[in-house]
C-alpha cells in the first residue's frame, strides 16, 4: 500500500482552544492520528471529551488553534463536499423533499461535469442505496427518524466523498432501528469502500463497525488515550459476533478504558 493511502487523513499535534465568554476553554491537546484509506475509525469517549470537536476539525467546520490536519495530501482549510458529514440530527432542510435534499449536494459536486438527467440519476441511485426510493417526494417531517437519518447518509454518500464523517448518526434512534441502520451502513461501506470517521458513545456500535476504535480521555484538554485494533473478519454479522470471544475481548477493553481508566465525570453525567 502506498504511504499516501496509509496516511489518507493525517492529524499532527492538533490543539483546540475555544474563546468563550468565560475565558479560554482548552478542548483538545496533542491529537495525533492517521487514518488509512478505506478504514473505518470510530471516536469514543464520555460526553464533553471533545470527540465531536475532533470530527468538526476533520470536517473543516472548525479550524485548529495549533497543529495541522491533512486529508489526501492537502491541508484541511475549511468544509468541503469531499469530506461529507452526516449530522447527529440529520439536518435535512424541512422545506425540501428527500430527493431535493440529496440533489442539493449532488448538484453542487457534479453539475460542472454532468448533465441534468445524470444528476437526477445520481440522486435516485443514492435514495435507492438506502432503500428509500418510494419516499423521494416526501418531506422530512413525513418520514420516521430512522428514514431521515438514512436520507442524511444518502445525501453524504451521493457526493462521492473521499471521507464520510458521522457525528453520532444513530444516537437519537431506538435500539432496533439503530441495529438495522448499522447493518445497512456496514453493507454500504463495504460496497463503496468509503473511508469513515464516526463519533459514537455506544461500545457495541464501535466494535461492530470499526477497524480501529480511538478512545478519548475526559476533557478539558482531552486527547487520545488509547487505540484498539479490531481484527474481526468482514463481513461481520451481528448475531454471530455476539458469541465470538474476540468480540467480547474488544468490548471489554473499551469498557475497561471508559469506566475504569476514564471514569465518567460526574459533573457531566447528563
Amino acid at each position, binding site marked *: 500500500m502506498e504511504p499516501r493511502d496509509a496516511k489518507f487523513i493525517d492529524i499532527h499535534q492538533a490543539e483546540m482552544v475555544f474563546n468563550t465568554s468565560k475565558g479560554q476553554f482548552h478542548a483538545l491537546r496533542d491529537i495525533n492520528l492517521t487514518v488509512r484509506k478505506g478504514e473505518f475509525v470510530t471516536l469514543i469517549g464520555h460526553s464533553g471529551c471533545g470527540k465531536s470537536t475532533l470530527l468538526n476539525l476533520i*470536517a473543516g*467546520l472548525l479550524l485548529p488553534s495549533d497543529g495541522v490536519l491533512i486529508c489526501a495530501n492537502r491541508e484541511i482549510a*475549511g*468544509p*468541503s*463536499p469531499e*469530506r*461529507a*458529514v452526516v*449530522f447527529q*440530527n*440529520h*439536518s*435535512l*432542510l*424541512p*422545506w*425540501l423533499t428527500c430527493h431535493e435534499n440529496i440533489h*442539493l*449536494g449532488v448538484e*453542487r459536486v457534479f453539475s460542472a461535469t454532468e448533465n441534468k438527467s445524470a444528476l437526477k440519476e445520481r440522486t435516485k441511485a443514492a435514495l435507492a442505496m438506502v432503500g428509500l426510493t418510494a419516499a423521494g417526494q416526501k418531506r*422530512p*417531517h413525513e418520514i420516521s*427518524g430512522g428514514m*431521515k437519518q438514512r436520507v442524511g447518509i444518502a445525501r453524504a454518500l451521493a*457526493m462521492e466523498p473521499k471521507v464520510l464523517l458521522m457525528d453520532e448518526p444513530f444516537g*437519537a*434512534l431506538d435500539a432496533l432501528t439503530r441495529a438495522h441502520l448499522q447493518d445497512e451502513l456496514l453493507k454500504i461501506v463495504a460496497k463503496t469502500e468509503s473511508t469513515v470517521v464516526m463519533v459514537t458513545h455506544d461500545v457495541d456500535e464501535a466494535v461492530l463497525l470499526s477497524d480501529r476504535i480511538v478512545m478519548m480521555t475526559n476533557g478539558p484538554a482531552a486527547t487520545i488515550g488509547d487505540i484498539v485494533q479490531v481484527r474481526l473478519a468482514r463481513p461481520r454479522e451481528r448475531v454471530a459476533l455476539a458469541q465470538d470471544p474476540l468480540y467480547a475481548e474488544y468490548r471489554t477493553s473499551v469498557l475497561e478504558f471508559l469506566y475504569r481508566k476514564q471514569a465518567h465525570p460526574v459533573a457531566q453525567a447528563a
Partner: protein
Amino acid sequence: MDTAANENRQAATMNSVTAEAVPEAAVVTPRPAPKMSSRRSSMPSWLMKIIAPLLGLAFLVLIWQIIAMSNSQFPTPLLTLQEALKLFADPFYRTSPNDQGIGWNILASLQRVAVGFGLAALIGIPLGFMIGRFKFLSSMFGPIISLLKPVSPLAWLPIGLLVFKSANPAAIWSIFICSIWPMIINTAVGVQRVPQDYMNVARVLNLSEWKIITKILLPSVLPYMLTGVRLAIGTAWLVIVAAEMLTGGVGIGFWVWDEWNNLNVPHIIIAIVVIGVVGLLLEQLLVALAKAFTYEQVSN
C-alpha cells in the same frame, strides 16, 4: 405543525417590536377552549363556541343601550343599525370630493396602507436581511432603530408634509415609517436564528451564496418575516385612521372626523365597527399566509 414552538418564536419576536403593535398581537391567538372545560359543562363544545361570543356581543349591545338611554346625544343600537343599513345600501356614491360613499373611503385608506406598506416591505425586508447577516451592519443600524422605533408615526407626519408638500404622500409616509420597523427587526431576528445545523449543511455542501439565500435563508426566515409583516399591517391600519384625521381628503379616518364635525354620532360608531372589521380581516389574511409558509422544524 409545531405550533408551540411557533408561538414561542412569535412571542419572542413581539418583545422586540413597536409598542403600538403589542395590543394587536395580543388579539391574534383566539385559542379554542381546552378540552377540560367542555367536559365540565354539559353543552356540546360547538354550541359553546357559538354561544359564548354571542353572549359577549349581547353584553356589549346592552351596555350601549344603557348608555344611550342615559345620554340623549348617544344613538341607540337600533338607530345605528338603521343608519348602517342606509349607509351600506349605497357605499359607492360620489357627489363631491368631500362627500363620497363609505366604500370609497375604505378603499382610499386601504390603498394608502398598501402603498406605504409595500414600500416599507421593499426596503425593510432586504435591510433586515443584511442587518441579520452582517454583524457590522447590525451594530451600525441597531442604535438608530432603537431610537426611532418608539417614535409615534404621527410625529413624522409634518416631515412628510414638508418634504412632499401634499397630504396624500405624507399619510403614506407615516404608514411607511410605522411599518418598516417590525419588518426590519423580525427579518433580522429570523436571519440570526437560522439553525446553525442548516448553515453547517450549507458549508459542508459548499453551496453558493445564491443557493444559501434561496434554499436555506429565505425559507427559514419566511415565518419570522411574515410575523413582522403581520405586526406591521396591524400598526399601519391603526396609524392610517389617525393620519387621515389630520390630513383630510378621502379615507375612513377623514370620514370619522367629518362625521364628528357634522355631529353624526351613529356614523362614527359605524366607522369604528368597520375599521375593526377591516383590521381583523387584514390580520386573518396574514395569519393564513403565515400558516401556509411555516415549516415544521426538524426533530427526530
